[in-house]
């Protein structure tokens, strides 16, 4: 495609306003560095949370002000459809919560606040760009931007040995996975002769690439099926790593356990949302290739099923809250991948307007699930962070008697995480309902049944925590001090803002559970265009 390029007059088709939220993040990050350098330790600790949080909020506001065009812009590099924009908003919300948790963490562990907040902002920049990127290289570099930021954020607590190990593992495996990603990009590039997803979709739709050879002769080069398959498989590996899908999830429990809780929360939520949004865009582009589904369906199925089962079964025997949450997040990624599976299979089943309607529905289902998943995890990790849990599950014994409200919040998060099979009016139920419904509708009844079964299994370990909090006496476990008591090693006083955030998360779980259309409606009313 780009062989017919360049040299004619370059007409930039930049929608300048579209860049504002991202430039804000960049400038905010730099501002953090500057202010940190200018004010010294105490001053930066005081001001930076406000700068970072304000930047993130301003950036979210930009999305709501419809500054970002709901289409392809900036040399086709970005495609900020409402799906991508909603994903960006989720990501920014998640990192915003991290900034609210930041001050206590920075103070308690004596962290360099300038770098801390800068990296948060750069990470959110990378994640939002990944969520809307329409070009593989941009996607890769965005991914690296936030990956490097998160590696460092996970290990930023230099006094902790476990954090160092978690950071190391995250980094090594992340680099390993991104090598696969690059290799996959190379093969897709070989198949489509371009790295732009929209052009790629066009190439795959017509089945060949027009290449201008010597003497202006146009030859039509057929798309090489093997390159598409291999390219997708390798890129999928790279994305699976970020999504912690089995068997590429092995880093997750160790990183969740070793890293600091705010960073882990972002790793669990925002980075997944970003990778998922990109995966949706990628799969949509690739699925125009006629043979794509025949190759990809089973790969995606295998990953989804193995993740659901592995995540849930492994979570059953965990005694550490964070490891349990890690495996649970593996399972949740598996559920979401069921949506991707439908997306992969859809072009083989229908076409035209019907196909577009189908893709729309899946995007709605996936975005709803991602929003719900993010809210639930923010609540769970946030509560665990503020009551000083995070360690042994036994530390939560009888929590309801010590700290009734955090216990109730955690219970709500757990019920919602169980989702289908237990708790209808919560966002967790709605997300699963939408996704499984799509799967059933397309004919993946078996997968839906497995997913249901997996959800039923998940009820045991989630509710085990609820039982521990509500129905166990406050006996001190041998392994760790009780959470929510002064002896708990990492207990922090919840700032007002953090409390507001957590209560909001609680409310959102129910609001989106009862009015799921509200969230999907955001795509139509607040940002540009329907979720498409």
């Amino acid at each position, binding site marked *: 495609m*780009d*062989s017919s*390029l*360049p040299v004619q007059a370059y007409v930039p088709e930049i929608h300048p306003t579209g860049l504002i939220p991202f430039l804000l993040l960049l400038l905010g990050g730099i501002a953090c560095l500057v202010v940190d350098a200018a004010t010294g330790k105490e001053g930066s600790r005081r001001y930076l949370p406000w700068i970072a949080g304000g930047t993130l909020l301003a950036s979210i506001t930009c999305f709501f002000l419809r500054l970002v065009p709901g289409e392809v812009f900036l040399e086709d590099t970005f495609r900020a459809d409402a799906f991508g924009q909603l994903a960006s908003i989720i990501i920014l919300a998640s990192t915003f919560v991290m900034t609210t948790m930041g001050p206590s963490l920075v103070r308690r562990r004596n962290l360099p606040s300038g770098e801390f907040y800068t990296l948060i902002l750069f990470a959110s920049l990378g994640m939002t760009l990944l969520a809307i990127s329409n070009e593989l*290289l941009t996607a*890769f*570099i965005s991914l*690296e931007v936030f990956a*490097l930021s998160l*590696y*460092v954020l996970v*290990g930023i607590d*230099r006094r902790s*040995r*476990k954090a*160092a*190990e*978690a*950071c*190391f*593992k995250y*980094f*090594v495996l992340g*680099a*390993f996975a*991104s*090598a*696969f990603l*690059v*290799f996959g*990009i*190379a*093969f897709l*590039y*070989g198949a489509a*002769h*371009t*790295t732009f997803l929209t052009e790629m979709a066009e190439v795959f739709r017509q089945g060949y690439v027009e*290449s201008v*050879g010597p003497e202006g002769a146009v030859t039509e*080069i057929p798309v090489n099926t093997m390159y598409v398959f291999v390219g997708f498989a390798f890129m999928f590996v790279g994305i699976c790593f970020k999504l912690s899908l089995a068997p590429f999830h092995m880093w997750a*429990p*160790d990183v969740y*356990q*070793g890293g600091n809780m705010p960073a882990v929360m972002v790793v669990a939520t925002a980075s997944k949302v970003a990778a998922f949004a990109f995966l949706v865009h990628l799969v949509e582009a690739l699925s125009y290739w006629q043979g794509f589904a025949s190759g990809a369906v089973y790969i995606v199925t295998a990953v989804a099923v193995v993740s659901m089962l592995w995540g849930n079964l492994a979570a059953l025997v*965990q005694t*550490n809250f964070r*490891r349990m949450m890690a495996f649970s997040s593996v399972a949740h990624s598996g559920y979401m991948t069921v949506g991707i599976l439908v997306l992969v299979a859809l072009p083989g089943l229908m076409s035209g307007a019907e196909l577009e309607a189908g893709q729309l529905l899946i995007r709605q289902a996936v975005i709803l699930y991602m929003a719900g998943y993010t809210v639930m995890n923010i609540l769970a990790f946030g509560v665990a962070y503020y009551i000083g849990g995070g360690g042994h599950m036994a530390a939560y014994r009888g929590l309801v008697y010590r700290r009734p409200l955090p216990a109730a919040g955690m219970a709500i998060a757990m019920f919602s995480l169980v989702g289908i099979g237990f708790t209808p009016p919560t966002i967790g139920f709605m997300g699963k309902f939408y996704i499984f419904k799509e799967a059933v509708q397309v004919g993946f009844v078996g997968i839906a049944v497995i997913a249901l079964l997996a959800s039923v299994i998940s009820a045991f370990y989630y509710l085990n925590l609820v039982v521990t909090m509500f129905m166990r006496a406050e006996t001190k476990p041998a392994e760790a001090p009780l959470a929510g008591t002064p002896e708990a090693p990492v207990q922090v006083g919840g700032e007002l803002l953090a409390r507001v955030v957590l209560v909001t998360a609680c409310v959102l779980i129910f609001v989106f559970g009862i009015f799921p259309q509200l969230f999907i409606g955001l795509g139509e009313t607040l940002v540009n265009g329907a979720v498409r």
Partner: protein
Amino acid sequence: MEPVFQANLILSTLLFTIGVLGVMWKRNAISLFMSVELMLNAANLAFVTFAFQLGLLSGGILVLFIMTVAAAEAGVGLAIFIALFRVHRHIRVDEQDMLRG
């Protein structure tokens, strides 16, 4: 000229495989990371080969960017290894198993 196309792709695959083996076999974190660099190089080779064979200009650009990414990764990675070295006084990969289960 044509054999170079397939041969280079196979060479790239071979380098990639060797890199993967290095990641799985090397006991020293730095050697391990060097293997990752090898994998990235293999990907670069594939890019250039495709660009060359398919008559595309952009291959070179992509390679340049990937090199930059590799450099950035190396920078952070080596710093992480140094941090790890401060903890354990060594960076043997197989002894990092405090977090497990």
